[in-house]
């Protein structure tokens, strides 16, 4: 313990000061024994707002929504033991989707560590594989520096969640505060500039390509709004088609001329066939996830592949690429544009014209077409109406995980980055509701809608209490089919229509549930009433739970069945019989 002197302060005070030093405005958290000194310091100040959640998992998803919609790191404060273990799902989610988070957890005092104390857990041990980095701080003198380093690590290179575990005695002890500028420079400085020679090589490929396609991902969004601007300039100037992963939606506008729509397992026909048939694939900040590639051996067999990624371990992890460029997307795009312009803005016009003609043919298939109904609300129709009625508004969308998530990605259009928050890599049911609150906290005046399925939504529905307490007017747009829709779809296609436990009985009355929370409930089951009901939801000044009763057995198409390549897509019900072989059934 350091001797008290004039400028010394307690660890708890130091934590709050360090957060302010880092420009933190909001903390999502839940108090408990091991963090009470920090909560005491929060009580004594007004600069940092604390959002009291109902479950620590909710806190982490809120911080994710906050981070993804602002580009700033999200901050979470939880207590020891169960507080920290409840945060694990959120940490893993943020790790897989590269979301910058700083999670502070309390710990039993240092002299009790290892004694199985009350609410003791090996938090750094448990969270080591689900954080980018974590620290157990045993000395108050190192606390401020560790927190500053934590922010640096969370936001540098490929962003991710970090955790700082702080024993209670360290919070009480006094030491000298170290300011943000005063800490010694971290050796962790990932390279942001791409290799100019490789970028020039890529420009040469751009100039000659007959059938190019841009395949972009969450890395563009993580790189910042400037990267999205550069991407737009490059795509529009070259006239190349562009598709994106689930995580990258909005980087290039959905209303843009060259937009093919999302690719992957439930991606658009034209996007997947363009990936399969291209001769030059330019991967910008995406990671060849298995939802994207389908059968790896048959993935885009005739293309030269370039891959721009800030994380060297993404290169050649799944798909072998011909031209890797390690660097920040924004920096690489800037150099790429500059070099391409200086060489005379060349493209293969003849080849491109033919390529677009081919793509236009694929588009004519109209893969998102579905059979609408006058009697029941089709989930696709509900989203089309939501899109039409909210277009042009200052709108943010979050989702849960499942069919509704894929339909939302297909039917909602995003014209700007940071407007679409969804759990991509981990596929965490229960993400959307808390994430929507985090987004709303960051953008109090915006329209924030969580497109949900009823099963996912129930997983973290306790957070409606948080929405009410902090006046976050989030709209919960629940596509209620009374089924675990995606599970049911797979059981239909793969498991002989044996619907094992994919049907939840005893669902709550969502309108009454809304009333119980003190917010507004709306129920709609007739397509004719849908527009009015959606408008009522939008206009209501406060949180709304919208129970949209939809067709119960609708399947999500297009679909690339497990273990199939991009050119073997299913477009509708008629094609689904016996398509998934035993080999494919093993895959998730």
């Amino acid at each position, binding site marked *: 313990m350091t001797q008290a002197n004039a400028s010394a302060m307690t660890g708890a005070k130091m934590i709050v000061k360090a957060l302010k030093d880092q420009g933190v405005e909001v903390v999502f958290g839940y108090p408990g024994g091991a963090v009470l000194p920090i909560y005491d310091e929060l009580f004594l100040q007004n600069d940092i707002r604390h959002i009291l959640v109902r479950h620590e998992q909710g806190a982490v998803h809120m911080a994710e929504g906050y981070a993804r919609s602002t580009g700033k790191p999200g901050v979470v404060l939880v207590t020891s033991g169960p507080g920290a273990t409840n945060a694990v799902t959120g940490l893993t989610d943020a790790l897989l989707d590269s979301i910058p988070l700083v999670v502070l957890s309390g710990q039993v005092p240092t002299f009790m560590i290892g004694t199985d104390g009350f609410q003791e857990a090996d938090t*750094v*041990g448990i969270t*080591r*594989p689900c954080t*980018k*980095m*974590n620290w*157990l701080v045993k000395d108050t003198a190192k606390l401020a520096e560790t927190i500053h380093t934590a922010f640096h*690590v969370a936001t540098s*290179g*490929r962003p991710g969640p970090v955790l700082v575990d702080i024993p209670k005695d360290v919070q009480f002890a006094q030491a000298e505060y170290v300011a943000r500028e005063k800490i010694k420079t971290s*050796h*962790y400085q*990932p390279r942001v500039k791409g290799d100019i020679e490789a970028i020039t090589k890529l420009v040469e490929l751009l100039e000659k390509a007959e059938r190019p396609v841009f395949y972009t991902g969450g890395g563009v969004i993580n790189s910042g709004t400037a990267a999205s601007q550069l991407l737009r300039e490059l795509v529009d100037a070259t006239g190349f088609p562009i598709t994106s992963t689930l995580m990258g939606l909005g980087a290039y506008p959905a209303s843009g001329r060259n937009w093919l729509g999302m690719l992957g397992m439930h991606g658009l026909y034209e996007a997947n066939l363009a990936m399969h048939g291209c001769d030059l694939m330019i991967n910008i900040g995406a990671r060849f996830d*298995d939802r994207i*590639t389908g059968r*790896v*051996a048959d993935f885009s067999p005739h293309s030269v592949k370039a891959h721009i990624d800030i*994380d*060297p*371990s993404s*290169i*050649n*992890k*799944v798909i*072998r690429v011909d031209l890797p460029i390690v660097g920040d997307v924004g920096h690489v795009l800037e150099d790429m544009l500059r070099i391409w312009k200086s060489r005379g803005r060349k493209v293969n016009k003849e080849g491109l014209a033919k390529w677009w003609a081919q793509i236009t043919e694929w588009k004519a298939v109209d893969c998102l077409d579905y059979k609408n109904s006058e009697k029941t609300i089709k989930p696709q129709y509900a989203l089309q109406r939501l899109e039409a009625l909210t277009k042009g508004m200052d709108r943010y969308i979050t989702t849960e995980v499942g069919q509704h998530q894929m339909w939302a990605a297909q039917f909602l259009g995003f014209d700007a980055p940071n407007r679409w928050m969804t759990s991509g890599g981990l596929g965490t049911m229960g993400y959307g509701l808390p994430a929507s609150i985090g987004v709303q906290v960051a953008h109090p005046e915006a329209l924030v809608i969580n497109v949900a399925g009823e099963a996912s939504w129930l997983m973290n529905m306790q957070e409606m209490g948080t929405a009410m307490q902090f006046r976050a007017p989030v709209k919960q747009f629940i596509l209620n089919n009374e089924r675990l829709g995606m599970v049911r779809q797979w059981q239909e296609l793969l498991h002989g229509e044996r619907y094992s436990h994919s049907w939840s009985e005893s669902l709550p009355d969502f309108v009454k549930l809304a009333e119980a929370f003190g917010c507004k409930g709306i129920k709609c089951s007739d397509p004719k009433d849908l527009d009015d009901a959606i408008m009522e939801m939008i206009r209501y000044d406060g949180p709304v739970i919208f129970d949209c009763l939809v067709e119960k057995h609708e399947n999500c198409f297009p679909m690339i069945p*497990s273990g199939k390549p991009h050119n073997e897509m299913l477009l509708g019900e008629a094609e689904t019989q016996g398509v998934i072989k035993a080999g494919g059934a*093993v*895959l*998730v």
Partner: protein
Amino acid sequence: MSALNITKGSSSHSAYDLRDPYAEVIESHTLAVLVDNESGVLARVIGLFSGRGYNIDSLTVAEVDHTGHRSRITIVTRGTPQVIEQIKAQLGRLVPVHAVNDLTVEGPAVQRELALLKVAGKGDARIEALRLAEIFRANVVDSTLESFVFEMTGTPEKIDAFAELMRPLGLREVARTGVAALSRGA
């Protein structure tokens, strides 16, 4: 895993078989990893190997710079070239890792391991053990009328060979340090 009948080569963390298309020769590589000697750093490295299904044949670790608090971890691992590259990239992005060197591909390197072997026996076997130890330049560091403890350094292959010869002569126990390695030249 066995219930699902996933074929050999599948990775345990992903449903898709990432290895098979590139299933080439399995190579052995010796990696030198320079890390901050901080709490949990070894767990971080080992967790990376177990979590992603990589192999560790041998691992040694000790602080090599007491003022800068740096440790050198020497790992002998196996995998296809693609997996080896992935291991290096994954190690490289760990925050406490300063450098990853692949001593197998970055020019010639010296590899040494230390082993202690206890051999018990009487009569001809005992004499034969001592004679072989001389050939292998193993030192006797403990001796009773019925046993020797030999100390030897060398490549893992040399130690394997010596241990194999000792087996019929009364080999009781072996303790090995794992490989330490440095590149040759300046």
